[in-house]
């Protein structure tokens, strides 16, 4: 079958989207961007391929079985278990490397103690995370291996090995990068078999239609007919020049594909904010990007989350509980951190401070929007930050305050817009 691949190598996350010949998304893959960009892109692509097989399996079951709809939940459970298998493989590999590195510690006594702790905590950490996977609590778009593992590991060693805490953190720091940059060579067929086996009952495993369609999907060659890479790290992708495209154009194309009446696109990513004006064909007519300072971007939120020792995903919901927005004057991420601490010292509620910080980001993005020519109807908000509900709230407020009432689009795939645009460009090439 004809499929097209778009890869968006962002500063924080790497995304891949696979579309079919109709331009519909069949697979999405995302991972955290890491020091080895090629691996990040490859992992995102593999994830998108795996996800495509699930989508195609679902389509076949939907069309080919009597109660097609009932398969949706089954596939979702199966996909959770599939992801758990992937997680476990890297989890075991990380422990291997940590054990190797622990054995290299010159102080043999310390080395042995570290190995003992690792043995002791391993099962506990894994079982805690297993539960989260099986209950569907893990978000495939934001909970990456590094984040999941480090949070659980740090908590466990803080409780169970206080005296070795610093050494064990250092051990993790030394081991995670090489493990993250390793391709584990996991195959869809093996992972899915493991996932099926782990299901509580054998009904699905023995269902003839399921088996038939699964085997068809397993045998499909998902080699992209064409592909395009985009994003902040696009030049580092091992692609020829003709397979590289500016993220400005790709975001605009993705947004336009989802919302054809889009005229203005605001994309807030990890360290870039882009205000893009497009014509009715989705072709860019002008754009502005932040220069020299990344205060209005996702990294700002990441920094604030670190300062408050909470997850990035918790920031938006907390800010939504604010009674008012504390006034954050600073347009600089580092100084905003200082303002945050000052407010905390004064006893201000963190919800109100966070609301102020979110508003500050949006104000900065809107100054960029104004530079690019303002907001034209319709307005589409894309990028990883478009999933933060507090940012979305202030974007809505500022659009209506500054430009009047107009349609504001925010797609559930907002983080994949660049990759989608790239895939669409590759599918619509002339040659």
């Amino acid at each position, binding site marked *: 079958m004809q499929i097209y691949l778009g890869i968006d190598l962002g500063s924080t996350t790497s995304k891949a989207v696979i579309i079919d010949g109709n331009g519909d998304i069949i697979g999405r893959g995302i991972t955290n961007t890491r020091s080895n960009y090629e691996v990040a892109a490859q992992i995102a692509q593999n994830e998108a391929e795996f996800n495509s097989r699930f989508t195609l399996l679902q389509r076949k079951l939907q069309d080919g079985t009597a109660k097609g709809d009932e398969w949706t939940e089954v596939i979702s459970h199966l996909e959770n278990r599939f992801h758990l298998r992937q997680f476990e493989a890297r989890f075991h590999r990380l422990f291997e490397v940590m054990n190797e590195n622990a054995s290299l510690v010159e102080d043999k006594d310390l080395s042995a103690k570290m190995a003992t702790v690792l043995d002791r905590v391993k099962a506990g950490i894994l079982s805690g995370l297993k539960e989260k996977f099986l209950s569907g609590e893990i978000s495939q778009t934001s909970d990456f291996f590094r984040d999941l593992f480090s949070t659980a590991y740090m908590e466990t060693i803080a409780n169970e090995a206080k005296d070795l805490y610093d050494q064990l953190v250092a051990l993790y720091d030394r081991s995670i990068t090489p493990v993250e940059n390793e391709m584990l060579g996991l195959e869809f067929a093996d992972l899915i078999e493991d996932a099926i086996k782990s299901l509580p009952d054998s009904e699905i495993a023995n269902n003839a239609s399921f088996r038939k369609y699964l085997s068809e999907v397993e045998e499909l060659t998902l080699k992209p007919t064409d592909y395009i890479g985009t994003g902040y790290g696009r030049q580092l992708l091992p692609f020829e020049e003709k397979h590289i495209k500016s993220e400005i154009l790709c975001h605009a194309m993705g947004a336009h594909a989802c919302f054809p009446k889009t005229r203005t696109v605001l994309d807030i990513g990890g360290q870039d904010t882009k205000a893009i004006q497009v014509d009715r064909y989705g072709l*860019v007519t*002008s754009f502005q990007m932040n*220069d020299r300072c990344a205060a209005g971007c996702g990294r700002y939120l990441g920094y604030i989350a670190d300062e408050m020792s909470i997850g990035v995903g918790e920031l938006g919901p907390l800010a939504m509980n604010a009674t008012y927005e504390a006034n954050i004057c600073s347009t600089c991420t580092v100084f905003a951190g200082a303002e945050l601490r000052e407010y905390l010292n004064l006893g201000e509620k963190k919800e109100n401070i966070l609301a102020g910080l979110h508003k500050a980001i949006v104000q900065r993005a809107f100054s960029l929007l104004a530079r690019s020519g303002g907001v034209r109807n319709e307005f589409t908000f894309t990028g990883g930050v478009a999933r933060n509900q507090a940012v979305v709230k202030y974007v809505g407020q500022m659009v209506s305050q500054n430009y009047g009432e107009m349609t504001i689009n925010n797609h559930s795939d907002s983080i994949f817009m660049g990759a989608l645009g790239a895939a669409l460009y590759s599918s619509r090439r002339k040659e």
Partner: protein
Amino acid sequence: MEIQKENSMIKQKHMLADQFIELSQVKESGKKVAYTFVPGNLTELIYAFDMLPVYPEINSLQSGMRQKSKEYIHEAEDMGYSEDVCSYVKCDIGMMLQGNIGPTGQQLPPPDILLLSYTGCFVFMKWFENLKQLYPNAEVAMLHIPYQEGGKIEPHAVKYIKDQLEKDVIPIFEKVSGNKLDYDKLGEKLDLSAKAEDLLIQVFDSAKNTPSPIDAYFGGVYYIGPIFTAFRGSEDCLEYYQELLKEVEYRVANKLGPITPDGYMKEEKYRLVVEGPPNWTHFRGFWKLFYEMGAVFVGSTYTRVGGVYDDDFRHSSTDPLGSMAEYCLGCYTNRNIPQRIDLIESFIKKYKANGFLVNSIKSCNSFSAGQLVMMRDLEERLEIPVGFIETDLVDPRYYSYSNIKNRLDSFFQMLEQRKSFIVDDDMLPDDVLT
């Protein structure tokens, strides 16, 4: 057939070398020196008094191209000039503090007159205020040029400038030079200027050809060299443009593109019009970002900063002071924003450009003001892709290669997508077409 590509450049080089030799020998020759600015320069008047002009802006840009500006800017910042002050000013002040050694390695003479005729840039006034402190013996002749707020040259503005010339500027020159103004000599120079101006416009208008035989921005800064600085009104200047035009005509006849540092431009893929001065500290690298992509500049506003000759204006001996007044009033940065937009629109149409780019200058508030309005207006009027990058004149700290490259990549792809993408109204839902 021998390619005459280098004759004009060689000639310009000799002209400049001779000029700096002459400047270095004023002690012996007894010639007086006037420091002045490029936009609104009164070079013919200076030469009519047999004085020599020095252009601090040109010295700054030369320092930038010779990688000296960083050091000069630091010198000025050590003296207390803030990071936000115009980098031309700081570079110039720093150069003077370090002995006023010019681009040829020879020391420049101190000014006898600071001729402050300025168009559109109010920093010039503070610049010469500071030079007056460095050179307390210099006379200051100030010529105030009213901004073209109403979008046209008003007779009262011309009269206002002529009065200043007659009552203030010329008497100071007469005092310093010890000579009365010879109006015949001035008139001859103004008529020679007009002839060179005709040729300059022919050079600019050669960009109507495809491929364009000139690069009106990076190449353009060489083409404007003589006429914007010490040579307007001279025979040498006229000869330079005769030579340049021959070279351009040769390229037109042979369907050749402009000459870049890597030889003739190979393929013309994009034709651009640009607003704003170039960056001088990374001049070649900056140029390369464009010619490597097959982008040629067919029009630029920077090449109008020292005089706009695209309409009917020419210097003239008929009313010498009136013609100098009109010249000053008409300079690019002295025009209001709607006039500038109209001028750019005319370039885009006349030279068949398919993109408009702004190179905004971090430390130049006068030039940068209004650029976003220009972009928006042109985008709406002409449905042309517009791009925006930021650099600086001579402060190398503000030249970020990766930022510029990233934006230009997107900009070129915006231009390319219009060629390669299948635009088909049938693909769009009906409501999108409304």
